């Protein structure tokens, strides 16, 4: 293909502002993280110096790092499938004519427009021992009392649940958009041939939604590594680091202990995780269909 020089100049001028900003706040910092991870943190009497892999060694030696990594994987594996499944269910509900469709759409979507930092306090109330909402319900059914946020074995579950609550409604919109583009005659034809509702869903609707599901999955996975606001309020990463995830730990090291060398090493780990997700996406997606 031959390019007209004039078009090339125009095009570069058009993309330049966006590309420059992206480079400044995405690509340069990515490289910067890697570079700085080889340097010690600057202290008043000890300037930053090259320390090779020391920051990584210290990180690997830190049990909280491993805990944060494992927690984050559980957080991702817990929140991704559930938010996808619920998003799909929600979309199927409000795609059909159903009593109170507008209200339901609103209800499902509200978490998206509410600030997590504040809503997290409400969730604390729900999970509070004795008189919290969940405990009141479980007392009604005579379940044994449980301290949801204050136990290492349920705290992570709680913050995962809140993440699902936050995200499902947003992903529903994508499914809804996709559902509306599935031609109705396809389903009608199947129905005339006597296919059951489940058969129509599993044989026609779901396969047609596959690209959307993949898109949502990738986004949900990425969010599992960046949505941490509620953890600040609900548990502060506790009890005993049971809800500490990578980004939370990064904040702690970088902006509470001001150890930027260590924080850079941790940033590189996060980048590597995201890189793996990107690789997965590349392998899963048919690039032609989606990017061309």
């Amino acid at each position, binding site marked *: 293909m031959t390019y007209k020089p004039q078009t090339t100049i125009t095009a570069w001028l*058009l993309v330049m502002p966006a*590309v420059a900003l992206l480079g400044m706040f995405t690509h340069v*910092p990515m490289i910067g993280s890697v570079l700085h991870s080889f340097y010690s943190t600057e202290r008043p009497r000890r300037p930053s110096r090259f320390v090779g892999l020391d920051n990584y060694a210290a990180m690997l030696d830190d049990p909280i790092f491993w805990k944060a990594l494992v927690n984050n994987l559980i957080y991702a594996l817990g929140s991704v499938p559930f938010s996808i499944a619920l998003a799909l269910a929600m979309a199927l509900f409000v795609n059909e004519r159903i009593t109170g469709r507008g209200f339901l759409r609103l209800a499902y979507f509200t978490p998206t427009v509410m600030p997590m930092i504040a809503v997290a306090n409400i969730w604390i109330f729900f999970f509070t021992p004795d008189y919290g909402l969940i405990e009141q319900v479980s007392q009604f059914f005579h379940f044994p009392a449980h301290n949801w946020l204050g136990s290492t074995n349920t705290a992570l579950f709680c913050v995962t649940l809140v993440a699902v609550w936050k995200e499902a409604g947003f992903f529903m919109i*994508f499914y809804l958009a996709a559902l509306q583009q599935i031609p109705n005659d396809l389903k009608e034809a199947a129905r005339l041939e006597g296919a059951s509702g489940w058969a129509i869903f599993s044989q026609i609707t779901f396969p047609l939604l596959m690209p959307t599901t993949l898109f949502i999955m990738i986004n949900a996975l990425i969010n599992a590594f960046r949505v941490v*606001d509620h953890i600040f309020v609900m548990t502060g990463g506790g009890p005993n680091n049971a809800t500490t995830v990578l980004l939370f730990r990064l904040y702690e090291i970088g902006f509470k202990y001001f150890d930027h060398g260590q*924080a850079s090493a941790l940033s590189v780990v996060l*980048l590597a995780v995201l890189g793996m997700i990107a690789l997965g996406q590349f392998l899963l997606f048919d690039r032609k269909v989606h990017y061309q």
Partner: protein
Amino acid sequence: MISSQQTGFIARIINTAAAWLLGLVWLLPLLFAAWAAFHTSANTAKLDFLAPITLSNFATAWAAAPFARYFMNTALLVTGILIAQFILCTLAAFAFARLPFRGREALFSLVLIQLIVAPDILLVENYRTIKWLGLVDTLPAIALPYLASAFGIFLLRQTFKTIPTELEDAARVEGCGWFNILWRVYVPLAKPVYLAYGLVSVSWHWNNFLWPLIITNSVENRPLTVGLSVFASLDQGIDWSIITAATLLSSSPLLLGFFLFQRQFVQSFIRAGIR
């Protein structure tokens, strides 16, 4: 034997009930917020419909923090980000969609990296950059990392690609330059995408917390979310009445907006064909 019509009816009942149950569960935090915000803290945990309604929590919350200032900051912030995103993404998306130029594919792949690596992850380095620019504790500092959005560019490029070239050719025959073509043909046809993307962007930045927390120091430059977080870290403990009042105050513009424009919003998403 139950007729298929009957099973259909039963299925629909179950379907509706499940949908409503899920809806109520999803709405619970908001319902609780509304309950607690209008009652005294003594009645927070009791479902007593005779408990007196009060507005004092809103007054207390409003007085406890400079909410007017926070609102203004957040409003300025989301508007500024939105305008910049629209302009930057439109220009870039048009070039990527319709102008064949050297290095296009490589450049676009670079842009797409931001879809995966969000600025939130790069806190430490972005902090360095902002400090280097001398912009710590300013509103532009909160906005800068988000102005160029790969998602916006990607979305608009996809949409622009679906617009038939005949329309463009017609405009070209009339002697329009690329700017006129973009402005008269592409932008109007992509309106639903702008609306859908705009709403997502506004609600994301209205509620963004971690980055503004790190990059701002003073009340003058703080958005709502960071102001709200102060309520969550009090020595005296949590007062749900005040917190819920503050939560409702700060999310009411978005809730109201979504309530009023819910239909258009969903429609524009559907027409935008975001999938």
